[in-house]
């Protein structure tokens, strides 16, 4: 064993330069995994840690109707029986339009109004600008506290008046941080008013648009309390949440995200593994003589394999350590690139769990990918020192290499499953990777074979370059595979980005409304339509809406005590805006069932959109019970609808048969299509709010801008990861070039001796790598377009179109990159004197 350690140390001392690329390949891979995992962990910590503050309490009981005395009595008795409540308050939330009264020119803004009473918040911090704590006296006498962003957007100051709904407020201050923070996607900024003012004001005419939340702080785990409350209110529209479940949901989402992102990291590490395999293969080839000498002086094959394994494991470990350092640098770079989009209190340090995982992965990948090349050592015979005739035998696939090969596949599968956190995803990842690599490898092989026929077509330099690509021991397929895979990822991401951005291009979808108006009262319809006609010359589409929640499916109450149901809380527990009509809308078609015009029915009927029908596992004939303004309405599912989102003005999940909702309190929603410049948009909103203060307006252009920003951030993040992939590809390229350098030096020496000029040799070099780059770009781009098409059509369900400019840029960019790096890495070869080289042979 001592010999193994000593040999390993001495070999490492002399071979580290040759194995530098090996080291870097691992470092980049480990760095990616550690950076991605740490980023998500930190984000999860920043957001998940805020789950309590986000709720501003430990338990929240919510309803869109005022709580009845019976309900309040039940809540009080259950909470009292639990004996853990240490504080409570009631909070009201709604959305409304805010309009400044002291500035004529400023526009209107959609705001989220939060009406609070002391003590608030039960949990979390509420800090005013300047660092002072929030004080309830600010809200006295129609006082309001807003975010500085709102003041900036409206061009107003503290002390100015703001009209929200029918009520005037005075801005008393701005807050620096609200409980739970203000990160994430929200339509408008939040304003705080006092609960008593809010209740007197009539901000919203439609009371069902106000969400009431009874909040409790608890001294112990609130789960039993939440469970017993849920039991009492099963089948009612009252929703009960605890911060623990929110935290649990957030953590679960982040864990999934972390696992999927780690697979991207694993992809980079596996790509690094290909580099490791290549280096180990050539390393063994170059070490044949040393191995034979060692065997000649009595060393056993397994001792030598153990020494090299130890060396590679050690390098994997060191590469991993360097990778962790790279991850820290990447996190800091991420901080400066995405600071605005990330929570303010997020940390940017490497997580130690991620670092340990990275180190382990780096070592395992190093050993897995070098195992097969290292096993060749067994077949190196010491008589090679006397007669070099067993070169072919070292590559033979004997049973042990087959078994080891299978072990390597099993090991990779284990790593993929571990990193993905799911057997199925892990298997698919490895299968996908194997297929992609095989297809790239086979394409590369095919292209190289077909190049042989072109040798005669070019001049001396081109034919020599083509010769170099197919010389014995060439690295062509390895470079094509590595760089092709890098180009593939980067171009695929770019192509997807372009299609996504096009999808969200406001100007393309002529049927996407420019404004949505909500909460229009029946008495206002005539005047509203007239106003729109006058201002836009367009008849607004008016749609009746009713607010409803699902309480039962097929007679079974929705039970949020069940974990599976709770996970879909956001989707099925929310309040839906439903409508009724006697026809299918443009862009809609039936997937299942029939439209009500065809058959008369005695029972209420409802049409369900495909996506929610899938979530609730609904089929035609099933029944859904809705709670509408405190009353239950049970309807049978008459049909399931499909929707072409690109060709529709509105999306309703539930559409009722006309007549069913006749007695329900309804308001109307409207939308218009006409596009307006920013100033006119603001003016229109002002005009509407001045006439109808209760109406809420959504400016689609603003939402589209937010979504486009989200898409751009997403694309930037993915490109950031994609650049790691291409960086790995370039490293493998440089590594491969340096591995074949000795042969190139010798060939150049011979060519120089035969009279080749330096210019000719340079042309050969540039042509060789230029051709290689063109091929890598061609293969990578083709598969990237294929992937981008498949993801657009089958996953994102968006229109896809090929971008010829991107294709050309992808191919030329890759060619230039490979030609540049390849030529640079071998340029010194041109300046070597031939005699010295020839003497050494």
């Amino acid at each position, binding site marked *: 064993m001592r010999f193994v350690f000593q040999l390993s140390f001495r070999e490492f001392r*002399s071979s580290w330069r040759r194995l530098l690329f090996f080291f870097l390949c691992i470092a980049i891979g480990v760095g990616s995994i550690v950076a991605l995992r740490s980023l998500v962990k930190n984000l999860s910590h920043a957001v998940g840690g805020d789950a309590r503050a986000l709720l501003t309490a430990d338990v929240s009981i919510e309803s869109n109707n005022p709580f009845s005395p019976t309900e309040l009595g039940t809540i009080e008795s259950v909470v009292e029986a639990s004996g853990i409540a240490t504080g409570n308050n009631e909070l009201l939330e709604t959305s409304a339009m805010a309009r400044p009264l002291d500035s004529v020119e400023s526009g209107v803004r959609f705001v989220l109004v939060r009406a609070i009473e002391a003590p608030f918040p039960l949990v979390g911090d509420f800090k005013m600008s300047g660092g002072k704590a929030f004080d309830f006296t600010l809200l006295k006498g129609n006082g309001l506290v807003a975010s500085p962003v709102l003041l900036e957007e409206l061009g107003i100051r503290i002390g100015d008046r703001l009209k929200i709904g029918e009520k005037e407020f005075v801005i008393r201050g701005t807050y620096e941080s609200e409980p739970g923070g203000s990160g994430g996607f929200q339509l408008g900024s939040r304003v705080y008013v006092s609960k008593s003012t809010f209740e007197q004001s009539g901000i919203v005419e439609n009371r069902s648009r106000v969400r009431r939340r009874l909040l409790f702080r608890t001294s112990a785990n609130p789960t039993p309390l939440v469970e017993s409350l849920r039991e009492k209110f099963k089948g009612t529209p009252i929703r009960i949440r605890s911060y623990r479940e929110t935290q649990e949901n957030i953590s679960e989402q982040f864990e999934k995200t972390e696992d999927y992102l780690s697979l991207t990291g694993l992809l980079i590490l596996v790509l690094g593994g290909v580099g490791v395999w290549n280096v180990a293969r050539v390393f063994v080839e170059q070490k044949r003589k040393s191995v034979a*000498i060692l065997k000649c*002086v009595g060393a*056993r094959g397994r001792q030598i394999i153990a020494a090299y394994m130890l060396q590679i494991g050690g390098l994997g470990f060191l590469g991993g350590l360097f990778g962790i350092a790279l991850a820290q640098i990447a996190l800091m770079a991420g901080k400066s690139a995405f600071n605005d989009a990330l929570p303010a209190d997020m940390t940017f340090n490497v997580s130690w769990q991620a670092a340990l995982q990275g180190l382990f992965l780096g070592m395992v990948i190093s050993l897995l990918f070098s195992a097969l090349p290292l096993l060749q050592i067994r077949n190196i015979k*010491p008589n090679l020192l*006397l007669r070099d005739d067993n070169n072919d035998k070292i590559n033979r696939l004997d049973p042990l290499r087959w078994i080891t090969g299978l072990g390597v596949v099993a090991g990779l599968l284990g790593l993929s499953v571990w990193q993905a956190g799911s057997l199925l995803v892990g298997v698919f990842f490895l299968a996908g990777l194997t297929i992609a690599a095989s297809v790239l490898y086979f394409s590369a092989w095919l292209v190289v074979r077909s190049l042989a026929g072109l040798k005669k077509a070019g001049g001396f330099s081109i034919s020599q370059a083509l010769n170099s690509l197919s010389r014995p021991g060439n690295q062509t397929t390895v470079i094509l595979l590595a760089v092709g895979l890098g180009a593939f990822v980067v171009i695929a991401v770019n192509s997807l980005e372009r299609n996504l951005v096009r999808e969200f291009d406001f100007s393309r979808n002529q049927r996407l409304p420019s404004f949505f108006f909500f909460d229009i009262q029946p008495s206002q319809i005539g005047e509203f339509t007239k106003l729109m006609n006058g201002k836009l010359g367009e008849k607004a589409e008016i749609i009746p809406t009713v607010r409803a929640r699902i309480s039962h499916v097929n007679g079974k109450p929705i039970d949020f005590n069940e974990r599976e149901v709770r996970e879909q809380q956001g989707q099925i527990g929310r309040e839906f805006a439903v409508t009724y009509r006697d026809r299918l809308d443009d862009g809609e078609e039936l997937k299942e069932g029939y439209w009500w015009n065809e058959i008369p029915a005695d029972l209420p009927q409802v049409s369900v959109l495909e996506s929610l029908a899938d979530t609730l596992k609904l089929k035609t004939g099933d029944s859904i019970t809705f709670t509408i303004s405190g009353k239950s309405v049970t309807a049978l599912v008459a049909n399931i609808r499909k929707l072409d989102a690109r060709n529709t003005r509105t999306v309703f999940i539930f559409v009722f048969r006309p007549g069913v909702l006749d007695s329900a309190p309804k308001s109307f929603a409207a939308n218009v299509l006409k596009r307006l410049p920013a100033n006119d948009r603001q003016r229109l909103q002002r005009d509407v709010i001045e006439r109808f203060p209760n109406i809420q307006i959504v400016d689609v252009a603003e939402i589209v801008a937010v979504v486009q920003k989200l898409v751009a951030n997403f694309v930037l993040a993915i490109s950031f990861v994609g650049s790691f992939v291409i960086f790995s590809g370039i490293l493998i390229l440089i590594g491969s070039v340096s591995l074949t350098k000795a042969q190139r030096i010798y060939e150049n020496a011979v060519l120089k001796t035969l009279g080749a000029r330096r210019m000719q040799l340079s042309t050969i070099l540039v042509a060789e790598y230029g051709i290689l780059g063109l091929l890598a770009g061609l293969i990578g781009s083709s598969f990237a377009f294929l992937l981008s098409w498949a993801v657009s059509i089958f996953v994102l369900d968006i229109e896809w179109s090929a971008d010829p400019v991107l294709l050309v840029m992808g191919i030329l960019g890759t060619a230039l990159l490979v030609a540049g790096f390849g030529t640079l890495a071998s340029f010194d070869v041109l300046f070597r004197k031939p005699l010295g080289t020839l003497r050494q042979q």
Partner: protein
Amino acid sequence: MIELKNITKIVKSGSEDLTILDGLSFTVPKGEFVSITGASGSGKSTLLGLIAGLDAPTSGDIIINDKYINKMSEDELADTRSLSIGFVFQSFHLIPSLTALENIMIPLEIAGDSNARYRAEELLSDVDLSDRGHHYPSELSGGEQQRVAIARAFSNRPEILLADEPTGNLDSKNGSHIFDLMTELHSKSKVTLILVTHDQSLAEKAERRIVLSDGRLVSDNRRAEH
């Protein structure tokens, strides 16, 4: 003692079989200095490789101290080479990534010798290279490299030293120095020395001269004692 019984070695050359050694039999008693000469391709180096267990004969037996070399496993052969056989090559075959001292230490470390460094330094001194121990092979001259190779071959105090054209890559001055060194170590440690060489003058200095031609033994003479 080394016994060779009817040794034949046939290798594939393209699609044809090529007989390199053809029914070779002889015995070398312990401590004898034997030279083997013959034209290029006569099978000298192959014969030496078979005795060292670097390759297996196609037929016949090689017996060293009553053990059949040709029936040993790879691990048993490795142990035999480690403990009983030293080998010196024409092109030295030092490990380029190790220093001169470390090259000598390698067989000792493989055998688990805890005094490897001390013994290697002693051997370096025996071959007059005490001050070059930390040099890598590429930093040594041909003669120096061969001296390191000889020191390595003697490191485990082998019973048998096999030398394949040890002076073939050296000038005459260095060549005779190496030869003297080997014979001196041979007489000092009483090892069996089998020397393959083209150099007739060196071959004549051996106690026994074997001449091969086309893989067959054509002459086997002992030098008359003076």
